[in-house]
């Protein structure tokens, strides 16, 4: 088990709404840790506390309660920030700068020496498909180009931890593919990537672990594979299904997939009996797997469940 890159324990953060108004509890006692070298997705509806959590990690917001550490360092410490690359939800920078100038500023602020910086900048700009926009000012960039520039500045100093807040916002399919590839590449290099997104298919595709927030609380967390497979149900695929067999499998659900191919859904304790029956009938069992649900289904279920509690 690798050391955690991020540890958050009992984090609480509230915002003042002004005099005579109650504080808003943005994050309410969340705890989780992110192992080094993993890709972790943070999901949740708007106002769930995702950006507040990220801002607390960066030291931009000071927690009311709780502990945070990044590679064992306090959040906001220079050492922690030196190891972190951050891209904000919509990357905002100075409109008057050209991309090279912007990256030069962020690179120098990240502690990179001036010598060799130009090469690093060009490498990142080309990597993110901004090599052709060198003469353009950032103010004239499209939303997608700004996003890519934001990712470029986050990657420039080759940090061990990447924190990306909605990195796919405003990107076209090609841009999304580029960012996905970058996340994979960074993972290959052993870097930790923590990103929030509304696009659940991207989370499913890219993440090892997922954390779901709702109303400032963690409502779901863990390995994506474990979360998406329900322990209770199994799916058994059978070819050459005969309609007369249905009588013997009345207690479980039988879904006709394609003509003679059916899928039987049974619970863990029924699995052995179902398989024995199928073997006795010399049925052609072509597949057996734990039933999985898409992250989107799970998300909607959690939304409904936690919504009722609230």
């Amino acid at each position: 088990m690798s050391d955690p890159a991020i540890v958050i324990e009992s984090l609480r953060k509230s915002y003042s709404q002004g005099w005579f108004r109650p504080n808003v509890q943005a994050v309410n006692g969340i705890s989780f840790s992110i192992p080094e070298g993993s890709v972790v997705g943070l999901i949740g509806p708007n106002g769930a506390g995702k950006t507040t959590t990220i801002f607390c990690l960066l030291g931009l917001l000071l927690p009311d309660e709780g502990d945070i550490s990044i590679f064992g360092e306090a959040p906001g410490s220079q050492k922690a920030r030196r190891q972190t690359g951050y891209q904000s939800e919509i990357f905002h920078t100075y409109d008057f700068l050209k991309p090279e100038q912007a990256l030069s500023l962020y690179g120098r602020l990240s502690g990179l020496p001036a010598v060799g910086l130009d090469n690093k900048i060009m490498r990142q700009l080309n990597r993110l498909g901004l090599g052709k926009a060198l003469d353009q000012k950032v103010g004239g960039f499209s939303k997608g180009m700004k996003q890519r520039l934001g990712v470029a500045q986050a990657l420039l100093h080759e940090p061990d931890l990447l924190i990306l807040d909605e990195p796919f916002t405003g990107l076209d399919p090609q841009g999304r593919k580029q960012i996905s590839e970058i996340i994979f590449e960074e993972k290959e290099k052993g870097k930790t990537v923590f990103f929030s997104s509304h696009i659940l298919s991207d989370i499913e595709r890219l993440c090892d672990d997922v954390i779901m927030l709702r109303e400032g609380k963690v409502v779901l967390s863990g390995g994506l594979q474990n979360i998406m497979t329900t322990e209770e149900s199994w799916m058994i695929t059978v070819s050459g299904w005969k309609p007369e067999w249905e009588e013997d499998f009345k207690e479980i659900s039988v879904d006709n997939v394609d003509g003679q191919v059916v899928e039987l859904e049974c619970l863990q304790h029924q699995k052995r009996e179902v398989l024995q029956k199928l073997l006795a009938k010399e049925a052609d069992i072509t597949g057996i797997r734990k039933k999985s649900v898409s992250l989107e289904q799970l998300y909607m279920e959690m939304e409904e469940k936690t919504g009722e509690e609230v």
Partner: protein
Amino acid sequence: MRNVQLILVNTIRDLLSKKTVYFLLFATIGIAMLAGSGLSTVFSMQESTDPAALLAQKANVLSEILQLWGLFTILFAIIYSAIAMYSEKKNRSIVSILAKPIARWEFLLGKWLGVLLFFLAFLLIGILAVLVFMIIWDISFTALFWTGIMYRISEMVVFSGLAFMLSQFINMILGGGISFVFWAFGTQFQNLIDSSYWYVDWIGTIGYYLGPAQITDRIIKDGILNNVLNPDFALYWSVIGENILYAVVVFYIGAVLFTRKDIQLN
């Protein structure tokens, strides 16, 4: 200090990109037009005119130019100091900067010095123009004149610093406004003390003791005329020193508080 320098340079470029120079150019043209009539009077005065009257006229014109120039630049410095961080928060560019390993005080110092040096450079252009006329008209540069120049610079440092720091914690209009009131009406607070209305007395007392020190004498004009027998240099330099110290203390307190503060975006 590398981070401070990076932010400082970026702030100056930001000011240039915002067409601030055009505002200043308009101000310059305005001042030149106002000064023009005075200058034409000087040029039209006969060589035979009483040298003392001629010098008085020249001193008047030059001190008026510097006075107006100083007013514009200090006013702009206060305004831009007050909005410097507001625009960083409004544009959210502060987030990507403070996510980098830069101390918050470095960011603050870089921003403030950027604004300050930009307007200081403009103030110096006005001073240089006056110096050129003084050379042409063979007017000697007295110690009192230089003291007046230093006082003007110290005014810019202290009032822009105050506006900059106050606007970190209160609304920028209020922050800039307080600094402006201290600058424009600072010398009036003393008159309010001992008023029959308690609240006026309070305002006077608070304004008098909390505001930066100011000099009421027109020392630049006196410096050009060289007509003061025993200028109170000790007082003038103590006021200049106090102002610089005031700016340093305000910055220090502001930076300490800013470090312990959430970055709230507008």
